[in-house]
């Protein structure tokens, strides 16, 4: 019997305590913000959209290798022999044309693993978070500025250079072989 009344008393008392808490909160300031009207300033480390400073990219593909979900796709073409591609902001010489640098933000897992291996700090995560679209394909960001003609031109040149190189190499090899043969030829009679 005592337990019965104690239960009723406890129920009423604790309900009143709880109501007191909600009553106090009725008059405290809201902690939420009215999002589109008020925006938080995000800390500088915020990992939102990826951004690539193409002037700084040397095309080393470290970020592509580091990405656990393969959302970065890079294609490079070697620069010409005497071509000056400029320097990155930390003074590294660029040797490659980065003709393609695609990041699919739709696949990105925001781990920022690509940011750390970058030797020049070209790729980084920005606090920019409002990039929703109606079409998933628009999430694919292309950072490279080369036009298709330029790319094919560069590729053509690279192919030619390679061919030339290969030809030169072949010629060199051949020459070496011939020299060897010649040496062998001259040696042969001696050994006989």
């Amino acid at each position: 019997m005592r337990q019965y009344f104690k239960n009723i008393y406890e129920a009423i008392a604790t309900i009143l305590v709880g109501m007191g808490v909600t009553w106090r909160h009725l008059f405290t300031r809201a902690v939420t913000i009215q999002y589109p009207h008020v925006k938080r300033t995000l800390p500088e480390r915020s990992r939102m959209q990826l951004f690539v400073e193409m002037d700084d990219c040397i095309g080393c593909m470290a970020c592509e290798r580091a990405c656990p979900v393969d959302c970065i796709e890079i294609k490079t073409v070697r620069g010409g022999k005497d071509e000056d591609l400029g320097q990155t902001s930390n003074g590294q010489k660029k040797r490659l044309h980065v003709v393609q640098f695609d990041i699919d933000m739709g696949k990105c897992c925001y781990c920022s693993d690509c940011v750390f291996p970058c030797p020049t700090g070209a790729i980084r995560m920005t606090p920019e978070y409002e990039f929703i679209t109606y079409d998933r394909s628009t999430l694919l960001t292309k950072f490279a500025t080369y036009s298709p003609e330029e790319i094919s031109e560069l590729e053509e040149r690279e192919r030619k250079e390679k061919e030339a190189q290969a030809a030169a190499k072949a010629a060199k090899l051949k020459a070496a072989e011939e020299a060897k043969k010649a040496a062998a030829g001259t040696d042969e009679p001696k050994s006989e």
Partner: protein
Amino acid sequence: MEPLVQFFFNLLPFLSDWPEWLALTVIGVAAAIMMFGFIAIFALIAIWLERKISGHMQDRLGPMEVGGWHGWAQTIADTVKLLVKEDIIPEKADRPLFKLAPMIVFTAALSGFAVLPWSSEFIPADLDVGLLYILSISSFAVIGILMGGWSSNNKWSLYGAMRGVSQVVSYEIPAALALLAVIMSAGTMSMRGLVMAQSGNILDWNVFNFFPLTTIAFFIYFIASLAEVNRTPFDLPEGESELVGGFHTEYSAMRFAFFFLGEYANMFVVSAIAATVFLGGWLPPFEALGFIPGPLWFVGKALLLVFVQMWLRWTLPRLRVDQLMYTCWKVLTPFSMAIILLIGLWKVL
């Protein structure tokens, strides 16, 4: 119907020249429309209020966008949304019952308004047994809940409906007994008579009349009424964390809105009964405040109780089925019986 007819005749004198049947029909339809309009507007405001109150209690702001000032038009927008939404009826549902259920729930709530005394003049129907009428008509909603839960052909809905029925039927008893305590002291069941019996200042109100007996009766009635309108901590028929949506799981669009409307109308009805029976209806707490019209007092008191209902909802967890029954049969019912006994003794002595 006398006071209402008188009220309308005073308001629109030309009505008295019309044939009686026509005048009565016009008055009846007009009163019904007024009530319906009141429910609709009340529901809009109450839902908005509930969101705001819950928001502020939870350190949020609640709706802020639609309509400009504090999102006042949010519920209107939601109503429009519900109106234009597709009305889905499950394939295996019992269609006629499924369609009928929300109407019954709403009708029951609307019928309750017939005897609410807004002021000494404006009372749609001043029945001699007004309180009895309202008690019986409000349990009518149970049929709608059961129909909705059964016809949805969903096991969760069925659970909700069964819980709802057992709950409402059980809680009728403490509610009725608590009201009986007041009826005994006032000696009438007419809503108008009940208010009239409380005239005077705040201490003449029934809630303070046989202090503390009627005060306890008031609390018992209030708790039981929470259960009758399925509000937290007795929202088991809906119990969304257990039963998904309870008896209205399968309802959508306007049919769902009718359940919703019915719920809010019921909230008002039970609060209005409590205000009428215990808190002096349209009477001001002090004579000095008599310049404020009666209906405002009435609605104000009812809204205060509605606010408390909301306040409780955003504070308390939900009971379990057996605990719900325990509260009803082992706590509220014995207490209300004891109160009747004590008031009877008091009266006799």
